[in-house]
C-alpha cells in the first residue's frame, strides 16, 4: 500500500487536494461547489474519452450520446422500478457498455476517421431516437430524475463524483499499464504492424470501446441523478466537443492530463459565462481559440508540458506522479 502510494505520489497528492478543496474558502461556497462537481464529472468523462482517443487513436465522436444513454437508462430504471440511483446506475453502465460493444463491433473494420464518424452517426441516431420516443423519455420536455439523496448541499454529490472519477482513473490506468494497454497503443500507432506482430486489433478495439462506454454510462448516470433532469441535449455533439476539448488540452494518452485540466477548464468557462453574460458566446470563442492554438503549437497538451518541465523539479508543485511508461 505504501509502495503503491509512493508510486502514485502525484495521484495521492491530487486526491488529497481535491478532497479538502471544497472545505476551504472560497471553494466552500455552494456555487463554487457546483463547479467542483462539474469538474469532477467532466474529469471522469475526459478520462474515459482519452482511454479511446489517446490509446487506440479513435475519437469516439458519439461519446456524449453513449454517456447520455447511460443516464437515461439509469433514470428510467430508477423511476419505473423504484430503485435507488446507486443501484440503477448499473443499468446505465450495462446499456452504455452494450452500446459501446455494438459500436466496437460495427466499426471494427474502419480506420481512424471512419470509425470516429460512424460513432458520431450512431450517436446522432441515438439522440434522434431519444428525442422522438416521447412516451418514455418525454423528449425535449425533459425527464425528471430522482437524485441520489435529498440534500441542499453539493458536498455529498461532490464526494460521490470525485470517488467515481478516481475509480474511473484507477481502473482505466491499470488497464493501460497492463499488456492490454500495450496492445492498445500498438493498434493506435499502426494497425497493420500490430496485426503483423500478433495483436488482434478487433478484439482490443471492441474491449476498449466497451470499457470506455461503460464508464461513460456510469458517469452519465451520475449526471442524471445529480442535475435531476435529463433532456436529449445531453447527448448532443456539443457535449462531446466539450469533453473532447478537455481531453485534448489535457494531453491525450496520459489519462491524468485530461483529469487535471478538467477542473481549471470548468472553472474558467463557468467564470467567463458568469462574468461575460453581456457577450453571449464569448466564453466559447475563447474556448475554441485556445483549443486551436494548443493543437497547432503544442498538440501534446498539458501532460506533455508537465513531462517536459519535470526535470526542473516541477513535479512536486504540479503534484503529478509517474506518467505511464
Amino acid at each position: 500500500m505504501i509502495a503503491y502510494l509512493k508510486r502514485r505520489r502525484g495521484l495521492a497528492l491530487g486526491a488529497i487536494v481535491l478532497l479538502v478543496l471544497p472545505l476551504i474558502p472560497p471553494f466552500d461556497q455552494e456555487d463554487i461547489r457546483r463547479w467542483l462537481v462539474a469538474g469532477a464529472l467532466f474529469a471522469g468523462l475526459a478520462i474515459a474519452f482519452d482511454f479511446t482517443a489517446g490509446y487506440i487513436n479513435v475519437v469516439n465522436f458519439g461519446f456524449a450520446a453513449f454517456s447520455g444513454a447511460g443516464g437515461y437508462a439509469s433514470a428510467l430504471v430508477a423511476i419505473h422500478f423504484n430503485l435507488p440511483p446507486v443501484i440503477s446506475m448499473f443499468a446505465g453502465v450495462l446499456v452504455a457498455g452494450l452500446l459501446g460493444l455494438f459500436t466496437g463491433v460495427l466499426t471494427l473494420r474502419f480506420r481512424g476517421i471512419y470509425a470516429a464518424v460512424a460513432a458520431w452517426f450512431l450517436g446522432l441516431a441515438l439522440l434522434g431516437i431519444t428525442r422522438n420516443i416521447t412516451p418514455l423519455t418525454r423528449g425535449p420536455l425533459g425527464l425528471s430524475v430522482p437524485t441520489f439523496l435529498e440534500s441542499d448541499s453539493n458536498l455529498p454529490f461532490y464526494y460521490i463524483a470525485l470517488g467515481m472519477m478516481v475509480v474511473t482513473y484507477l481502473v482505466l490506468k491499470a488497464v493501460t499499464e497492463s499488456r492490454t494497454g500495450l496492445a492498445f497503443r500498438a493498434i493506435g500507432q499502426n494497425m497493420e504492424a500490430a496485426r503483423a506482430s500478433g495483436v488482434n486489433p478487433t478484439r482490443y478495439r471492441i474491449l476498449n470501446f466497451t470499457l470506455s462506454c461503460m464508464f461513460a454510462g456510469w458517469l452519465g448516470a451520475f449526471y442524471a441523478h445529480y442535475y435531476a433532469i435529463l433532456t436529449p441535449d445531453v447527448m448532443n455533439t456539443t457535449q462531446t466537443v466539450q469533453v473532447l476539448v478537455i481531453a485534448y488540452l489535457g494531453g491525450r494518452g496520459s489519462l491524468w492530463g485530461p483529469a487535471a485540466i478538467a477542473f481549471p477548464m470548468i472553472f474558467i468557462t463557468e467564470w467567463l459565462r458568469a462574468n461575460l453574460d453581456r457577450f453571449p458566446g464569448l466564453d466559447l470563442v475563447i474556448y475554441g481559440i485556445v483549443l486551436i492554438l494548443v493543437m497547432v503549437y503544442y498538440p501534446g497538451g498539458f501532460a506533455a508540458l508537465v513531462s517536459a518541465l519535470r526535470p526542473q523539479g516541477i513535479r512536486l508543485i504540479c503534484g503529478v506522479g509517474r506518467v505511464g511508461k
Partner: protein
Amino acid sequence: MSAVKQARRHGRRSRLEFASMRSPVVLTLAVTAAVAIVGTARAGPFIIVNGLVTGAIWALVAAGLALVFGVMNIPNFAQGEFFLVGSLSGYLVFTNVSPRIGGGLAWAAPIITILVALLVGMLVGGLLDVVIFGQMRRRIREQWVMNTFVVTVGISVVMINGYQLIWGTDYRGIPAYFTAPPIHVLGVGIAIDRVFALAVGAVAISGLWALLRFARLGRAIRAVSQDEAGALMSGIDISRIQTLTFAISSGLAALAGATLLFNFPAFPYVGIKPLYVAWTVVILAGLGNVGGAVVAGFIIALFQTSTSYFIGSQWEDVVPFALIVVILALRPNGLFGRGVRGVWEQ
C-alpha cells in the same frame, strides 16, 4: 509497396469502376430507385423534385468536404460554418442590393448575391487555411488526420459563437429571392427559388468537374491528392494548391448557404444540418470521392424527403444516419470508395 502489388491494385480498379462495386452498391441504388418509384406513386412526383433540389445543394457542400479530405486529408468538421458564412453574406448583400436595383434588372440581384457569397466563402476559407493549416503543415506530420479534425472542431466552435457574439441569435432570412409565381412541372408547383437552387447546384457541380478534369489548376489539385512528393518534383507549390483547395471547398459551402437562404435563414446553428448531411453523403460516397459525393447527395436527399413524408419530419435525420451505419457495416470504405490511401491511415 512493391511496384507489382501496386500495379495489381490499380489494375483491379481500372477495370471499370463498376466492377469493384459489389452487391451493397447495387442494393442501395435499387432501394433508392424503389423509394423514388413507390414514393412517386403514393405521394406524387414532388418527392423526386424536392429530392433533386435539396440533393443538388447537399452535393455542393459534400463535394467541398470530399475535396478537402481528398487533397489535404482534413476531415472538416467546420464545413457547415462556411454554409453559415454564405447565408450571412447572402443576407447582407441581398437586403442591400435588391432594393437598389429594380425593374428589369431585379433578376440580377440573386446572382450578384450568390457570387459575392462564393467569394466571401473562398476568402474566409483561404485565410483560415493560411493562418491555421499552413502553420500545422509546417509543424505537424504525425496524427495529421485526427489533429486537423480536432482543429476544425475548434474552428466550428469559434465561428458559431463568434457569429452569435456579433450578429446575435435572430434569424436573418428572406422569404424568397424571386417574386415570380411558381412554375408547374408534372403537376407540381415549384417555387422559382427552388428552380434557381437546382440550376446553381448544376452549374457549380459542372464547373467543379470541369475545373478538376481539364484545368491546369484542377490537374495540380488532383496531383497533390495523389502524390505530394511527385507534385513537388513537378514544381507544384503544394501549400498554395492546398490553400486554394480549401478556399474552393469553403466557397462551395458558402454558395450553397446563400442559395438556400430562402429556406435556411442565417443564425448561429444553421450550419449543423448541412454539416450532418454533407458528412452522411461523403461517408456514403467514400471519403475523398468528389464524383461519388454528387450521386450520394441525391440519394440522401431522396431518403430525407421520403422519410419526412412517410414517417414524419422528426425522423428525417435518424433514418438516414441509421441507414449509413448499415451501409458502412457492409462497405467500410463507402459505396464508391476504393480503399483508403496510405496517408489517411494513422
